């Protein structure tokens, strides 16, 4: 498979009367997005705003973030299995409006959080403060049940990304990232002496607001499955999760999965990157045993020497993470875990909900309990009431001047467990 991502750099964003791109300036006609999304009878109202890096703007509550793109050569434009008919992803040429993002808002439940501050202290903690954001606020038809509400908002975000992505159809750029890999036998023949490495990406798969999708299939319904890394970079994996703000993997982060890109960059140099296994994080223990056994079996069958595992969320998925780790290490496969920590305000508590002695190589994506101070915003996109939810966790978190304290777990993508975020690890 060979996938080329042609990066068209967006360096400014404006609202206007037409959809166009000129010298880095992306102009959005809100009506085009509104008309496109209102084709869905479940969409009652759409509001389109923009938020640029440095604006004193707060976006809340964020549901998903999606990168606008268009496929100009090859099969599978859009999100096959969800917004377009089923086609194979992973090959071809894609024009990417790099630096732009669709941010969907609209609360499905009142306790939903997920904040993006475009300026100041808050901006430091989320990767989406540096993107030029097209913020799409979706209200749904009255009486819609929660499941249909979630589906409507999720699909509207993906469609908005397609509509904006169309702007890039006839554009060109010299910056092209090429992701190419032959089958496992070809690559192993090329690099017979390099360790064979698989990447296991775990997805929250537990029900309403706690789901992930692969070509439109709810990951709750699958056994762990092997996917070519290019398919994920080409839009095969979609977020349906909007509770775990700090460590949910947004669709944008799947499209730009840092773990995949880093493994690709080292492929043929010091490792032989063999592919991605997508593993559901189920609710029942019996389900967890099944997926963990099955994941370990896939890694063994494929002859992996090493495995990188990334988690999504916190709490019961910690058990899956450690059970997979134990099974792999017991089989002689070296295993590295990427997770975030929930180690209290002072960072001194036990970081995960579970432990195993086999977890000897763990990369921390940050402490979700770390407290940050957010100043008041000039402009709020979304539901200002959600700000009270965000800060309402303890006495003294709301100050008289309108500033507030919140834990990192409320900030979108702040402790991304696939590594697509702003924090780094310090070696001691």
């Amino acid at each position, binding site marked *: 498979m060979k996938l080329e991502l042609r990066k068209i750099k967006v360096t400014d964003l404006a609202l206007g009367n037409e959809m166009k791109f000129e010298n880095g300036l992306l102009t959005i006609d809100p009506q085009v997005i509104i008309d496109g999304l209102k084709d869905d009878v479940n969409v009652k109202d759409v509001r389109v705003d923009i938020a640029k890096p440095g604006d004193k703007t707060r976006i809340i509550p964020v549901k998903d973030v999606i990168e606008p793109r268009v496929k100009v050569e090859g099969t599978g434009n859009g999100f096959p299995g969800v917004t377009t008919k089923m086609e194979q992803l992973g090959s071809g040429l894609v024009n990417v409006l790099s630096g732009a993002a669709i941010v969907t808002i609209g609360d499905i439940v009142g*306790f939903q959080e997920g904040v993006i501050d475009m300026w100041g202290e808050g901006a430091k903690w989320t990767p989406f403060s540096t993107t030029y954001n097209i913020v799409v606020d979706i209200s749904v038809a009255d009486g819609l049940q929660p499941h249909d509400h979630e589906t409507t908002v999720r699909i509207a975000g993906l469609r908005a990304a397609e509509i904006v992505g169309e702007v890039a159809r006839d554009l060109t750029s010299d910056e092209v990232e090429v992701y190419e890999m032959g089958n496992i036998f070809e690559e192993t023949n090329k690099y017979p002496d390099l360790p064979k490495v698989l990447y296991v990406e775990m997805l929250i798969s537990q029900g309403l607001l706690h789901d992930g999708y692969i070509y439109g299939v709810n990951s709750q319904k699958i056994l762990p499955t092997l996917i070519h890394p290019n398919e994920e970079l080409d839009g095969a994996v979609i977020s349906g999760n909007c509770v775990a703000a700090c460590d949910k993997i947004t669709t944008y982060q799947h499209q730009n999965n840092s773990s995949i890109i880093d493994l690709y960059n080292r492929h043929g140099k010091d490792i032989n990157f063999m592919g991605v296994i997508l593993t559901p994080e189920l609710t*029942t223990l019996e389900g967890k045993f099944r997926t963990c056994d099955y994941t370990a079996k896939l890694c063994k069958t494929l002859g992996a020497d090493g495995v990188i595992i990334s988690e999504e969320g916190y709490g019961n998925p910690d058990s899956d993470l450690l059970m997979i780790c134990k099974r792999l290490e017991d089989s002689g496969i070296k295993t590295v875990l990427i997770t975030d920590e929930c180690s209290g305000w002072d960072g001194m508590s036990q970081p995960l909900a579970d432990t195993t002695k086999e977890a000897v190589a763990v990369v921390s994506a940050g402490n979700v309990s770390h407290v940050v101070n957010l100043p008041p915003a000039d402009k709020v996109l979304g539901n200002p009431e959600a700000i009270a*939810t965000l800060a309402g966790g303890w006495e003294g978190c709301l100050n008289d001047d309108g500033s507030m304290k919140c834990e990192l777990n409320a900030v979108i993508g702040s402790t991304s467990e696939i590594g697509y975020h702003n924090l780094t690890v310090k070696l001691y």
Partner: protein
Amino acid sequence: MNKDYLIISNNPLVKENFQDTIYFQGTLEELLIKVRDMVHQGHELITHPLGASIRMMFSPYKSILVSSEKKEFNEFFASIAENSIEDYRKNTFNRKTDYQHKNDYAMIDKELLQEALKEHVSLRAIN
């Protein structure tokens, strides 16, 4: 097939919708302790006592499935039940339960329980 599970819940919406719920009028922490004690008495954990995100720790409500039959003491389940209490206490040390959105939490907990029951029944069919 006989029902092989018990629903232990402090969620009034679950009590309303699932006839045989063992309804427990108490806090989420007290519920976790009750479930831990049941695991020590031999009930197997069917669902993990914790949710999949920090936010769900601030929920006033939770529903957990355990086996209706008491079996041999299982150290693995006991350790999960114990760790869940510790983890809950750690995460709610500074944070208050979010009663303001209790109805939304009740609805989401019920939805997640329904999914867990589907998962359990499908697994039971092949066991």
